[in-house]
């Protein structure tokens, strides 16, 4: 009888100290971050998993997310254009155009603000918007989820990604955010130049690329960085080729009189300020600026050289604004463009892991 007592106590000890049951675990996904990049901060409520990334890739290319099943995220963020739209304004399923250019999806995992006016502060929140926007995909998340739920393939993929049954918009956004965080570009000629000038060891592949960098590209890099040259680096520097800020870069207000950041903050000091974008893959992401007003790089360079429009909120770093710009001569413009082309990362746009899986 006493033994029963001790057995009972032992069982009590066993259960009292036991950890909770460990359920299904998705496979952790290790991001391939270039050695000269900072860490990417992953939200604790959306850890990267192989299953989540793969589901996100399916969803990114999924046309069922649109009202008439004709548009996916990739419609306006095309891989061959470094996940941007070659059209000045993207057209939604109802034939309505927006008034801003689709931003390129490059190295988004390092961003803190999304959209040209920075109105969303996480990738997960940003992703929810285009689906329900009447001028974009124009679908309710309820309908979109119902369509996905009819597909056993998706039901299985959601389970594998999140370890539980059920599909909802938040899970869809999380999965797409995971996929977009994998869209890392860091293998351009510029990356080799950056590593070389900072004394970082080059791999054998990078050594080969290094041999192909010509004197004009190096000269263009000097003009890019020079205070007396193009002076681009104040807003486009570091391995990510941008700084985190909103800036009025001296554009004439467009026909929409788009106030940019001020739409979010309601602060007139933010009038005409827009998010500074990365220059990575810049040759692939025409047209340029928040409204796609410049069709090519020559027009962009001309803007900074002689087309600056002064206004009360112009960025103080547009230091030669009162002279109309930095006044580059023809040779300097040519060399600057040569450098900008070194930012193209063909491995990025040809990466099979980023392609349409359907």
């Amino acid at each position, binding site marked *: 009888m*006493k033994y029963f007592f*001790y057995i009972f*106590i032992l069982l*009590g*000890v066993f259960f*009292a*100290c036991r950890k909770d049951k460990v359920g299904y675990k998705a496979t952790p996904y290790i991001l391939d971050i270039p050695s*000269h*990049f*900072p*860490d990417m*901060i992953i939200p604790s409520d959306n850890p990267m998993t192989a299953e989540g990334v793969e589901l996100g890739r399916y969803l990114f290319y999924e046309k069922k997310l649109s009202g008439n099943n004709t548009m996916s995220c990739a419609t306006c963020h095309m891989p061959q254009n470094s996940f941007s739209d070659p059209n000045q304004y993207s057209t939604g399923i109802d034939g309505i155009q927006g008034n801003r250019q689709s931003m390129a999806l490059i190295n988004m995992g*390092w961003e803190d603000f999304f959209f040209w006016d920075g109105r969303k502060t996480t990738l997960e929140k940003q992703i929810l918007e285009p689906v329900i926007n009447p001028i974009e995909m124009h679908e309710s998340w309820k309908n979109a989820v119902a369509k996905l739920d009819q597909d056993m393939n998706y039901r299985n993929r959601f389970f594998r990604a999140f370890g539980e049954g059920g599909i909802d918009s938040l899970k869809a956004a999380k999965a797409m955010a995971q996929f977009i965080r994998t869209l890392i570009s860091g293998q351009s000629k510029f990356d080799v130049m950056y590593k070389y*000038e*900072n*004394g*970082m060891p080059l791999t054998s592949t990078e050594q080969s690329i290094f041999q192909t960098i010509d004197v004009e590209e190096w000269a263009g890099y000097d003009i890019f*960085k020079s*205070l007396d040259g193009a002076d681009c*680096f*104040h*807003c486009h*520097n*570091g*391995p*990510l080729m941008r*700084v*985190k*800020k909103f800036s009025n870069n001296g554009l004439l207000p467009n026909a929409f009189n788009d106030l940019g950041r001020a739409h979010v903050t309601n*602060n007139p*000091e933010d009038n005409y300020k827009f998010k500074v974008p990365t220059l990575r893959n810049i040759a692939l992401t025409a047209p340029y600026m928040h409204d796609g007003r410049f069709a090519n790089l020559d027009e962009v360079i001309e803007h900074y050289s002689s087309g600056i429009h*002064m206004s*009360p909120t*112009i960025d*103080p*770093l*547009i*230091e030669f*604004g*009162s002279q109309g710009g930095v006044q580059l001569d023809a040779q300097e413009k040519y060399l600057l463009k040569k450098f900008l082309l070194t930012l193209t990362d063909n491995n990025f746009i040809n990466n099979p892991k980023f392609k349409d899986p359907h």
Partner: protein
Amino acid sequence: MKQLLFGILFFMFLVTSCKKDDVNPPATTYLTVEVFPMYSNLGSSSMELDSVYTTPEGYKVKFTDVKFYNSMLKNGGNNLIEASFFDFRGTGNFLLHTVGDYTKFSSLQGYIGVDSLLNHSDPSAFPNESPLNISNAGPMHWGWNPGYIFMNVEGKVDTIADGINNLDHSFSFHIGTDAYRRDFSFSNLSWIKISETERKLNLKLDLWKFLHNSASPIDLKTEFLTHTASGQQLLTEKVIANFQQSFMPQ
């Protein structure tokens, strides 16, 4: 008897086996330092970005950005923190928050700027929470060779006496490179008690004094731009010297 003893021992084992660790570690003290920019000709009230003030020369002026790094903050042999970053627009008055014993920091020494070794390190290799990590430094990092911008003051000024306050003239002072790193040393500091576990120190940055240093005033009409480049040494020297003298305990 033996069974009773065994039972008691077993019970004691049960009581102690699942017990959590003692929950009374020594009290941790958090130290916070804040900086209050001010424009002292207005009295002691703090100043704001984007508000219009008047320069010593009578120009209308507004500041759009005030940022700086401190590094190697310590008192003698007691280290407080490796680096701290003040970004008035981004993080308000915050300069640093760390664990420490305030009684050891009645005085504080450090650099305005970034210690040379840190200044030329890989900016992506600092811990994610470090203000020196490239993700946090952003535009305050020029490149590995020049290093960080130690001090950044930007704004707009109206130097044209046309009666229209259009503030159409930009000024920007970007001071960096090892040669322009400066020391600071504060003593008799008063740490304010916030709670049993937190103390706070208030510093101030007097931007009126920055412009109106009696020995070397900055006239924004003619002295409005330095990036610490060659040919800009005179203004660079003046700007960092004035900044050093306008940074002090509150």
